[in-house]
């Protein structure tokens, strides 16, 4: 029981470290779909319907460069982790009562 928690924690720390180290060399080029949208001329169809996101394009609160990316990474991973733990426990707890 304990071992999987410890493994999960180590996996989390390791992935954070690896991502943090590699962020500076991550490519700034548009991704495959963006490239195609530019080449085929439908990129201008992209609309910003939702403008409330606090860290658009992974630049946290307008902070440029590595610090912004790093804050985005840490905040994003924490948010995904928290949401995952919450939803996961909710779903699995129900199953226990049902069985």
């Amino acid at each position, binding site marked *: *029981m304990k*071992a*999987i*928690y410890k*493994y*999960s*924690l180590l*996996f*989390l720390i390791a*992935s954070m470290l*690896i*991502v943090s180290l590699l*962020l500076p060399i*991550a*490519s*700034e*080029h*548009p*991704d*495959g*779909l963006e*490239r*195609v*949208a530019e*080449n*085929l001329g*439908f990129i201008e*169809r*992209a*609309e*910003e*319907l*939702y*403008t409330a*996101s*606090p*860290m658009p*394009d*992974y630049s946290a609160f307008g902070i440029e460069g590595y610090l912004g990316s790093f804050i*985005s*990474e840490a*905040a*994003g*991973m*924490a*948010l*995904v*982790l*928290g*949401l*995952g*733990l919450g*939803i*996961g*426990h909710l*779903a*699995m*707890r129900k199953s*226990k009562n049902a*069985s």
Partner: protein
Amino acid sequence: MHIPDGFLSLPVSLILYAVVFVFWVLAFRKSRKVIGEKHVPFLAVLAAAIFGAQMLNFSLIGIGGTSGHLLGAVLAAVIFGPYGALIIMTLVLVIQALFFADGGIVVFGANVFNMGIIGAFTGYYIYLLLKKVMKKNIAIPVFISAWLSVVVASFVCSLLLALSGTVSLGRAIIAMVPIHAVIGIGEGIITLGVILFIKKTRPDLLELEKISPGGEAR
């Protein structure tokens, strides 16, 4: 391959929301059989790690000025099954859309459909099929299914763009699929690396389907 708002028509976007909703309900029912309560932390950690990995765009060799990044659908599916992978991909995509403006809101269902359902399910069943053929070897099934998941998702993305009247199907496929065939190589390498690491350190995580719900084993 995160689709921004505006690329897809409203009918296409709404239909895919409906399809995804059905799969979400199924996912919560089915994943309980595979995922015990004690595996929830690793599920959440894997989702967080995939979020982080998706920030690492790699430049494509041979295609100037273009990058790709991991999807992670097959990585998640090999461990937690396709429904577990759908949950993981939904977690990643919802945080990206809400907090990072990566992927639209109206087209959120379409992005979950494309990366979380098409990517995870086609990849997973190809993985199972190849695993049966290859017997003990998992490296080749993992690499090929991860590669294929990206290629198939790019094909379906082309289909959605064409259905929405954004671009003709032929032009979309000719542009999308070759680029993603290159991006898929990165997907294959990263997925294989992580799976082999897990196989070495916690091989039981690759055999979750053998653990009964509630997870008595270990």
